[in-house]
């Protein structure tokens, strides 16, 4: 179930408001780690931990430019989540339609 493991990493990464905020920032473009960390009332070390979870989920990729670490958003894992979510919605919609059939059949 490697697919679920990947989904789990994506979900864990997205489950925290700080990490979502970091992704929101990176949606606007590549940024330095220190710039990402600046607005948060937590230590650079804590922000680095958040970034590592985002990297584990492959939502964020890092490259070096000289001594700077630059972070960029990678949207690919979101596609897998989108597919999964659409499947869930389709399934519930189908079930509610099935209920409609049952009720219609049983109508006196």
């Amino acid at each position, binding site marked *: *179930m490697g697919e*679920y493991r990947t*989904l789990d990493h*994506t*979900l864990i990464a*997205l*489950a*925290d*408001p700080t990490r*979502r*905020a*970091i*992704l*929101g*920032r*990176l*949606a*606007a473009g590549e940024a330095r780690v220190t710039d990402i960390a*600046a*607005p*948060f*009332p937590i230590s650079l070390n804590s922000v680095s931990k958040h970034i590592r979870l985002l990297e584990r989920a492959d939502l964020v990729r890092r490259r070096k430019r000289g001594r700077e670490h630059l972070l960029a*958003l990678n*949207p690919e894992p*979101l*596609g897998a*989540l*989108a*597919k*999964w*979510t*659409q499947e*869930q*919605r389709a*399934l*519930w*919609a*189908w*079930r*509610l*339609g*099935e*209920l*409609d059939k*049952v*009720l*219609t059949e*049983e*109508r006196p």
Partner: protein
Amino acid sequence: MTTQTSRVVVTHHYAASPERVFDAFLDVQIARRFLFATPTGEMIVAEIEPRVGGRFTFTERRPDMGDVRHVGEYLEIDRPRRLVFTFGVPQFDPRTTTVTVEIQPKGEGCELTLTNDGVPPDYAKRNQEGWTRILAGLQPAYDGVHAAGWL
């Protein structure tokens, strides 16, 4: 702090009364025909304890996965308006999600809204434009950090 990541919401209009639609979720003979069904599966176990704190089990035999057992607990039963229950599939994942069913009278029948919380985020579109728009929506959270004077 919530770890909830998002929700799936589905609505459906029924010609039947709110009471009839509501009761279908707690009547095991009706519920087994739709509630945790899939298009190709066969429901082999359906058990319901229709009270707050009561539990249910629905086991479906699926051609591709074998027997899939859904278990859950009723959190709210407010006939005919609102039904809330948890469910999970322990063989795949120890976590549960929450389903809220809300029924409003509408015309001759009713409108049902089903919300499944705790499922992956609703990234409605898979294309780049879609996720950019979604992530742009996260931006206010980041700006809010500034606004709160934490800089």
